[in-house]
């Protein structure tokens, strides 16, 4: 390769949902497409082109980020958790609470909602209704009107989820 050739791909080492791997990715590939297309982790969704909707929210080194606004190469050396990594043998209290409070209908925004809400709960285990709304302001839901989602997250903080 001549020195003037643009670099079109790079090798990244990334730990996704506890599994470390080395992957060659086009340098322009978004993290969300890397997760969905290369790793087949299709739980992370895409709902816009502008970083507005939050359906693609994942945890990058423990912080909730919109994976459509991050390049895959930027995740080199990082730890990523997607919605598929939330539950172990059992659903988490947050997942159960979404179920019990009817916090989802079509389920398309749900992975992003869960990732934003779980990042909030990690920092603030018992958030108020207003704190939940602020934490979820980057996540769009078109089915529920948010009422049951907010209720579901608040209930986890109160220890009300089964």
């Amino acid at each position, binding site marked *: 390769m001549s020195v003037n050739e643009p670099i079109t791909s790079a090798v990244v080492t990334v730990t996704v949902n506890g599994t470390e791997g080395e992957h060659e990715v086009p340098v322009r590939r978004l993290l969300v497409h890397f997760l969905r297309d290369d790793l087949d982790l299709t739980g992370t969704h895409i709902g*816009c082109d502008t970083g507005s909707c939050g359906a693609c929210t994942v945890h990058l080194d423990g912080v909730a980020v919109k994976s459509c606004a991050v390049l895959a190469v930027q995740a080199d050396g990082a730890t990523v958790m997607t919605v598929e990594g939330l539950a172990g043998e059992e*659903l988490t209290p947050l*997942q159960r609470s979404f179920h019990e409070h*009817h916090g989802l209908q079509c*389920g398309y925004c749900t992975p992003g909602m869960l990732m934003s809400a779980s990042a909030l709960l990690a920092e603030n285990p018992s958030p108020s209704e207003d704190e939940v*709304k602020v934490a979820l302001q980057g*996540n769009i839901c078109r089915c529920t*009107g948010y009422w049951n989602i907010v209720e579901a997250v608040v209930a986890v903080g109160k220890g009300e989820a089964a």
Partner: protein
Amino acid sequence: MSTTETTTATETTTLQKGYVGQSVPRREDKRLVEGQGVFFDDVKRHGMGYLHFVRSPYAHARIQSVDVSAALALPGVYGTLTGDEVAILTDPFFQIAADPGGQVKDYALAVGKVRYLGEPVAAVVAETRELARDAAELVEVDYEPLEVVVDARASLEDGAPVLHEDCGGNLSYTGVWEWGDVDGAFAEADHVVSISQLHFDRFNSTPLELDGALVEWNRGTGQWAITTNNQFPGFAVIMMAPAMRVGTDKLRMITQDIGGGFGNKITSHPQLVACCLLARKLNRPVQWTEWRTDFHQSMSHGNERWFLDTEVAVQSDGTMTAFRTKAIDDAGAYLRYEPLGGVIWSQVAPGMYRWRNLRLEFTQAMTNKAPVSPNRGYSRMQHLWFTERIIDIVAQELGFDRVELRKRNYVQPEDMPYETPNGCVYDSGDYPRALDLALELIGYDTVEQRRAEAVERGKLLGVGIGSTLDSGTNNFGQSQLLNPELQFSGNNEVATVKLDIFGEIVVTLGTTPQGQGHETTAAQVVADILGCDVDLVHVRAGHDSYWNSHAGFSGTYASQFAVTGLGAVKGAADELAEQMKTLASMVFQCPIEAIELADGFARIAENHEAALPFMALGAIPNANNAGFPVDPPPMNARFVFRPQFDVPDKEKKFGNLTLTYAMQIHACVVEVDPETGVYEIVDYAAVDDCGVRINPQIVEGQVMGATAHAIGAAMFESFVYDDEGNLLTPNFYDYHVPHALDMPPLKTSSVESPSPFTPLGTKGMGEGGGGGIHCVCAALQDALRAAGGALVTDSHNPYHRVWDMLRHPERSRDTVEVVKQ
């Protein structure tokens, strides 16, 4: 949480009580909260190519040439498709309209001309999404820009630029809809109020998942497998197959999880055809996922509508006797589902009121904007907004109390079932009671005190009511009122229920749910009928036309699952129950009447020891039938639910157009800052009556979602075009949909008036959001009474429009006149 529920049943249901009526937790949820749902974009195939559309940067232009050579030269590009190829390989889509709209020539890609910004002109398929997008940039299209028209009123004037020359103008449909003695009612009226112009704005419900498909071509059988999120596959194949010159069975439609629909995913058939043509041409699977900007620019806007020269006849006691108006509907550039909006509104012609004399001249125009298609509350929402605006404007101008005026004119519970002037039958309901409930929830009796308190804080407080109907289960015969040549009528839906070898109940639906919980509610109905645990009932997710459990109207749209879908499920489950009892009676050699299904057994009712587990029944016909003296029943039932409809009278435009009428009363309190026009909804109540509720939690979820759509439409969401036809709100930055922080406190309640016309007493529901638009408009008008008395004449009222109304109340006041005092 501020949400409270005060559920009150007006009547008890006649159905046996079991799972039905309970908030059984949704079985769809587990896979969705684990990220294991399967949406079309999640499905991959070996060697598939990604499709990207080349779209028009002009709203109206002649296509001089399309050159794909540079795109094809790019390594990794598999192939392209142009409008010229489409015009050879396909016929124009069948048009629902009679002439002049019937002359529209609509293809999968633009042929000869583009008529709206974002219209697909060519398509490129490449190895990766990124490459397809790059290659699309290399397609050279030579355009000759043409004059643009974006206002429906202007498009109908002489000399306006014409979109479809074959139509001889921009008119797609016009018709006069008149019932009763309108002139007589006006002659006898004590008062006549005239309203020169009302405008219902253009928006849609923007599902979070975009349109798309994975299309596989089977070169051996000549069949396409289309994994998609189209929400009305029955309609899609009717459009696609003739255009592609193939039989409908060549198009296998498959859905599983769909990320919201709201009607917006009905008219993706042009893009699906482009995918099919490319899958065949390239002999490889083709994957198309729309981008957000593509969706905003090109798909499924809601119908924008003007109401001009409205007059309302009112008696001195407040009885409303007649209205007449001219509606101008903006269909956008193509008629993809239109002009059906031209008849759908008439399902609710008099709204919730006892108007007996109506005249509406409906005219639909084509403009250089995205094509419209159904959007939650399709065409009825626009009309019901109009009737609610009439009520509040008349009340204000003639000095009537808005609550009393509504109650006086509502169709009353004792009138039910009520035949409207145009022959529609409102099945059941108690509108005054629902209004009382809504007012109670927002604390209506303390409003004047709160208004005074708000004044002290420098705010204007207003209260608004929005009453609305959600007519469900269409009689497709109404399409013949627009085009007498059409051969559509009635409605249907299909379900199959079978008992498998190991005793598992398997249910297959024809519907395409997008979050409505069909797997859960269908299981509830079946478990009650078969007397088994709900977890024993497996409901297949999604739709597949290979299952043979669909019919021509299959899909999920227009508020009908609880009637047609569950009607089919009930019919099939009843048949299977009969088969199971018959088989048990053969085994026990007893009369069938002696058998009952309970606790997961078919048993002799008088002797529970004589019991066959479902597994035994399932095994006999399926796997263990040697020596059986007669043919055992197959343990497999397919049922087509067909509501009883007649074709409406085409001359009189008279007949029953929908089977059920769910009802919603919304009420809200707003506070307006008179300095800025900024306002906030501080209290909100939604009361819903959809007859028997199979699953109250799911019903309430639908009410909430529809409310959120209405609040968005009332305050934030609008497809705004400039004069050149550029869409100014092409993404979620400019097109603001409500976020969690935008939502007001909500109280919900319900009334349960079972439908006498449906198998389960249910009514279709989910589209009652219009009530939110109506009540926000009404609350703003109420708040502005103390600051110049502007009248709200637009459905969409962002803060700057409220500021305008505060500064210039005369602008709207001048459009309204009491011509007969």
